[in-house]
C-alpha cells in the first residue's frame, strides 16, 4: 500500500488546484496566507507534519463553497421546482397553466423556517428577489390565515437532521398538526435523504435543490472524496477526529456526525467538519462559522463611546 506522501497529489499540486478554485468560485476570498495559517493548526500529532498537511489540503480542495451567485441560482431553482410540483400535483392541463399559476401563487404563503435572524430569513430575502414575488406572499407564522391559503411553504438553507431532534422536524410537525388540511412544504437548498424521508413521514413535502447521500459523507465507504484513495479513509478519519475533538468534543466530525465538507458565503453549517470552521482554543478557521448565541442574553459592548 502506498503511503500518503506517495499516493496523494503533492502539496504544490493541491495548492495550485485551490488557487484556481479560489479564483473561479471562492471569489479570491482565500489566499495562500490564509491557507498556510490554517495548515499551522496541524502540528503532527497524528501523522507526520507533511502527511497532515497533505490530508488537510486534500480535504480543503474537496470543500464545496456556495458563493452568492450560486445561492441566488438555487433560490431560483427552488421556485421552479415548487411550481413544477404544484402543476403536476394539481393535474393542470397545458392550456390552463397560466391561470393555474396565478391561482397557486395566490393561495401560497412563504415563511422562513426558524427564528428571525437565522439563515432561513436570509435565504427568504434572496428567494423573494430573484423570483420577483410580491411581498404580500411573505408572512410571519402568526399571520397564517387558513381560510385564504392552501399552501404553507417554509424556506431554509440546510436540512440535515432527521428525526425529532431537528429544527425542521420540530417546527413543521407543530404546523402540520395545527393545519392538517393544508399542504405543508419545505423548500430547502440542501437536504439529506434521511431528513426528506422523515419529514415526508410526518406529512411535510420537501423540495430541495441538492440532495446529499452517503457519497457526501467524508469518511463513508462510498465517499466521493476518497473514491480514488479508499485505503486512506481510516487514517484521514482518525486525523479529522483528533483535531475535531479539540474544537468540539461532542461532535468532532460535525453536528450529528455530519462529516460534511461544504459551506456558504454567509456561514458554514456545523454539520461540516469542525476543522474547517472551528475557533476554540486558538484554532484558525479557513471558513469561519458564525455561531448562534443561545446562552448570553446580556448585551456586551466594548466601545467607549456609545
Amino acid at each position, binding site marked *: 500500500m502506498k503511503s500518503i506522501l506517495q499516493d496523494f497529489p503533492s502539496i504544490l499540486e493541491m495548492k495550485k488546484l485551490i488557487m484556481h478554485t479560489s479564483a473561479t*468560485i471562492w471569489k479570491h476570498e482565500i489566499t495562500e496566507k490564509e491557507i498556510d495559517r490554517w495548515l499551522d493548526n496541524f502540528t503532527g500529532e497524528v501523522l507526520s507534519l507533511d502527511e497532515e498537511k497533505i490530508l488537510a489540503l486534500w480535504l480543503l480542495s474537496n470543500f464545496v463553497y456556495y458563493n452568492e451567485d450560486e445561492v441566488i441560482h438555487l433560490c431560483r431553482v427552488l421556485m421552479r421546482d415548487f411550481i413544477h410540483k404544484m402543476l403536476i400535483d394539481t393535474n393542470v392541463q397545458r392550456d390552463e397553466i397560466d391561470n393555474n399559476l396565478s391561482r397557486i401563487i395566490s393561495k401560497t404563503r412563504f415563511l422562513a423556517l426558524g427564528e428571525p435572524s437565522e439563515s432561513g430569513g436570509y435565504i427568504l430575502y434572496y428567494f423573494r428577489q430573484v423570483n420577483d414575488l410580491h411581498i404580500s406572499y411573505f408572512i410571519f407564522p402568526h399571520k397564517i390565515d387558513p381560510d385564504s391559503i392552501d399552501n404553507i411553504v417554509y424556506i431554509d438553507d440546510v436540512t440535515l437532521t432527521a428525526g425529532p431532534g431537528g429544527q425542521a422536524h420540530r417546527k413543521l410537525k407543530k404546523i402540520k398538526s395545527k393545519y392538517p388540511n393544508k399542504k405543508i412544504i419545505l423548500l430547502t437548498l440542501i437536504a439529506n435523504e434521511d431528513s426528506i424521508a422523515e419529514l415526508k413521514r410526518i406529512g411535510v413535502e420537501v423540495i430541495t435543490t441538492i440532495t446529499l447521500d452517503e457519497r457526501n459523507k467524508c469518511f463513508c465507504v462510498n465517499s466521493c472524496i476518497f473514491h480514488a484513495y479508499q485505503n486512506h479513509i481510516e487514517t484521514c478519519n482518525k486525523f479529522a477526529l483528533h483535531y475535531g475533538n479539540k474544537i468540539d468534543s461532542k461532535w468532532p466530525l460535525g453536528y450529528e456526525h455530519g462529516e460534511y465538507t461544504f459551506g456558504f458565503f454567509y456561514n458554514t453549517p456545523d454539520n461540516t467538519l469542525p476543522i474547517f470552521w472551528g475557533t476554540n482554543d486558538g484554532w484558525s478557521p479557513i471558513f469561519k462559522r458564525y455561531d448562534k448565541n443561545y446562552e448570553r442574553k446580556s448585551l456586551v459592548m466594548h466601545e467607549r463611546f456609545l
Partner: protein
Amino acid sequence: MKKFIYEMELVSAEVIKKDSFDIFLLAGGSDYRAYEILRIMKSEDVSINKILLFAFQERIQGIDTSDAYYNYLKIGFSNILPIHCSIKEPNSCLDGLISLESEILTAKKIALDISCFTKPFFFYLIKLFKERFKIHRITVFYTEPQSYLFPRGIFSSYRSSTGPLTILEIPGFTGYEARGDKRVLVILLGFDGDLSKEINEDISPSETLVVNGFPSYAPKFKDISLIANEKLTSDKDVQIIFSKANNPFDVFNLLESIKNKKHNDRPFINIAPLGTKPMALGVCLFALYYPEVRVVYPLPETYEKITTDNCWNSWRYLIPLNELR
C-alpha cells in the same frame, strides 16, 4: 408563448414497470452504465419488441468477448439487433435505420438511452426521428455515473479523449448565419478543459457565455467544471450562468431566455454542449425548435474507453418532438 409541463422522473421499479416499448435504442459500450436501463427493464419485466444496439466499430476494435462491452448478451433479451456504424460519422447509421423504416414508422413507443452515445450521435438520431421518421415523442433515458475518473484525484487532469480535436458542426445543426450579425457562443462546461479553449478559438465569438451545470450530480462537480476551464472562467468579463445538470428542460428555458434577451442584436448563436448529456439533450431540443442556432462539438481522434465509474441515479425524460417545429 406555448407552455408545457415537462415530464422527468427518477427511474425506479415503480416508474419503469408501467413502461413498454416497441423500439429501444442504446449504444454499446464498456462503461457499466451502458446497460443499466436494460438491466432494470429486464428485472421489472418491461416489454420491448426490438432493441437496436448501436455497435460502433471504434469501440469493438481490439476487444474480445470477455470485455464488458458484451455484457448486454448476459442480460437476457433475445431481440437485440446490432446497427453497425462509426462514432465519428453519425450518418453512418442511416442505411441501417432506413432498412427498419416501416417498423419505426409504425412504432408507438420509442425509447432512447443516451448514457453511452456521444452527443453528436444522439443529436443526429433525435433529429432523424423527428424530421425523417416524423416521430411525435420519444422517451429518453440517462444514467448518471457514480463518479468520474480523475487521474490521481486531480480534477483538472480529466480527459475524455486523446489525440487531436477537430471542431465540427453537429450534422444537421448548422444553423444559419447572416454575416453581419454578432456571434455569441454559449459553452456548457464539461470537465475537459481543453475542449472549451479549442472551441472558443475556432468560433471566435464576440461574446462568450458560460453555463455551468448546477446543481450538479454531486456537489463538487459544479466546481470541477469551473476549475478545469479556469482560463475561461477566471476572466472577470466572462459571465457564468447556471442550469441544472440533470434537467434538459431547464437548459432549454435558459437558452431561450438568452435568445430573447439578445433579440434586438439578432446574434448568431452557437452552442457547445460540453457538459452533461441531459444538458446536451436540452440543447438538442432547443436547436430543433430554433434551427437558426448552430451546435458545435469537438470531435477527438480517440475517445477514452472508460471515463466513469459505476452507476448512480437513472432518469427518464419524455420528449415531445411534435411540439417542436
